């Protein structure tokens, strides 16, 4: 009897734990960032950037995320934020389709909706603006310039890509080839082969090793995919060719740290998730404060990143990728 009454008391107090402080309206605009899912290290620097920008703009920030990245898991979270009357909802959507209605509802209530990293492709009208990583042009050109600077703008090189139909990689490779043809700075660089490792570590490694065997005078491998660049570095390290073959591409600092530290790779690139989050935070804060309207060509003052322009389909690009070297890699943990 006593035991059971005690249980009731425990439940009541357990539920009551949540009411410690009741939420007070501080008058500051409220922003929320909803990541794809919890426990995804890619979003940690992004969230930090978002928070820093919001703090600079004097806004309150909340970050929430669903446990899983399935299509509907963000729905109730968005609904809860609408109900709380936030000024702006920034999110990395898990679906280009399933969230539209609830986002339309948010926008109808005057809440700004900012997609970060992933966009609502073909459903762009369900968000106010999209903040994206880097534009394909700067990625493609940046890869060629990075490789050129490593091999002295002359010599044979190969590309190690993901799958033959990977849309991002194919777009970048197209721009890389065009840059080689049109810019005289790169006229002495010769692309000998594009290999595909299917973004599988083992297949990528085999392809990279094949390239080293086939072209003994190869000077560089550029892999615009995180799996490929790590595999190429592995192949060069195993073949002890780090002095003659330069590997670069797009990789994450955590994946590439070992190769940078032991000298196998001199430099590689990737956009900065921190900057992306920071830019999204700046845009969200300014939209929540109604000090910004999104139109094609609008200039946005994005704090320490400087100025950014709104492009077609209301897209804002974070900027060219960051180049990671031995000097700066220890500042990045993702």
């Amino acid at each position, binding site marked *: *009897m006593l035991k*059971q009454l005690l*249980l*009731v008391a*425990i*439940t*009541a107090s*357990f*539920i*009551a734990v*949540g*009411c410690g402080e*009741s*939420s007070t309206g501080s008058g500051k605009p409220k922003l*929320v960032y909803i990541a794809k899912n*919890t426990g995804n290290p890619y979003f940690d620097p992004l969230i930090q950037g978002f928070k820093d920008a919001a703090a600079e703009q004097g806004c309150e920030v*909340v970050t*929430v*995320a*669903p*446990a*899983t990245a*399935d*299509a*509907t*898991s963000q*729905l*109730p*979270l968005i*609904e*809860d934020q609408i*109900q*709380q*009357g936030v000024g702006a909802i920034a999110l990395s959507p898990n*679906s280009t*389709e*399933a969230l*539209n*209605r609830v986002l339309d509802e948010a926008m109808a209530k005057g809440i700004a909706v900012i997609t970060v990293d992933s966009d609502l492709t073909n459903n762009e009208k369900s968000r106010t603006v999209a903040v994206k990583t880097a534009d394909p042009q700067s990625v493609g050109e940046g890869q060629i310039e990075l490789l050129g600077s490593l091999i002295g703008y002359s010599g044979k090189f190969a590309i190690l890509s993901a799958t033959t139909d990977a849309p991002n990689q194919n777009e970048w490779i197209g721009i890389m080839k065009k840059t080689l043809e049109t810019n005289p700075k790169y006229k002495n660089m010769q692309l000998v082969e594009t290999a595909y490792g299917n973004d599988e570590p083992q297949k990528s490694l085999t392809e990279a090793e094949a390239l080293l065997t086939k072209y003994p005078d190869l000077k560089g491998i550029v892999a615009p995919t995180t799996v490929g660049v790590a595999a190429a570095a592995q192949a060069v390290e195993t073949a002890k060719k780090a002095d003659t073959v330069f590997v670069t591409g797009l990789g994450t600092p955590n994946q590439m740290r070992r190769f940078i530290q032991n000298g196998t790779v001199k430099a590689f690139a990737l956009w900065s998730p921190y900057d992306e989050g920071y830019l999204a935070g700046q845009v969200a804060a300014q939209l929540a404060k109604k000090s910004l309207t999104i139109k094609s060509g609008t200039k946005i003052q994005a704090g320490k990143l400087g100025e950014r322009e709104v492009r077609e389909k209301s897209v804002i690009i974070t900027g060219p990728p960051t180049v990671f070297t031995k000097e700066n890699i220890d500042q990045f943990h993702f």
Partner: protein
Amino acid sequence: MNQIVTVILLIIALAVGSQMSPYFLDAGYLLKKTSMEVPIAIMAIALTFVIIGGHIDLSVATGTVLVSVIAARSFDELHLPMAMVVVVALSCGALLGAFNGLLVVWLRIPSLVATLGTLALFRGLSKILIEERTIRGFPDWFLGLHQAKLLGTIPLPVIVMLGLAIIAAIVLRFTTFGRTVIAIGTSEPAARYSALPTARTTMLLFVISGVAMGVAALANIAQIGSVDYKGLPGGELIAITAVVLGGTSIFGGRGSVLGTVLAMFLLVVVRSALGMRNVQVENQLPIIGTLLIVAVAIADLPAKLLARLKARRRNIEGTGTKPGATIHA
């Protein structure tokens, strides 16, 4: 009797929730959050029958996904009109349920094991049938069903859920089938020796669960407008939680549809209140887990109190019964 605990917890949760956030107590918002959980609630209503009948169906959520995938493909590739897709979904659901029923009744595999198998099987078949694709483009009138509101406030899915719950409650209480389910759940051998149609009734239990998958699949498609194989992760666990939280005995024999519906509301209220305070989904789990354990632990409290009171009175009247001796009512 047992749903009294659920009602009390629901009232406590509403009171606490309104203290936690000024935005919480808003009928429109809570109804909208409820309408999002309607697919799970429909599964839970059917599961109430299955569990009262002494069985379990772990495949409800993945079965719903499989039905969604088949319905989506028949719409997308066979270009069936949506009205036909509805028929396809309901029949497919019934077939999946019948398959579970055959495993349990005919092959005599315990339902826990049989449906643990089909839980994985249905998800796997969904993946094979749709691969990594997402099917979309359902007609507007169908997608509009999720947003339709009756009397300007109550979402259509919630009405459908309540309608199904009322029918289910009537079937359970006032039909021969309902009483047979309770008899089987209380003691299957006793039901069999009483010449009750145990095999047929058990089969029907799983078919009902299957038809519920069909309805849940349609509700789910109307809600999100797209279908892939990854939907409703862990949905079966939420549905079972609702059934047990609603006072239905996991051992079968007793329980109520009303309790299940109340428990669904309780879950929505608790999650919404925590969501208002931006509590992460994983951090909500210990609270929901504790709620379940406590609800089950105190479920018998009203009955026990009554029994104790009777016993005491009898004791005073001098019948010689020791207090507490007849607690087990």
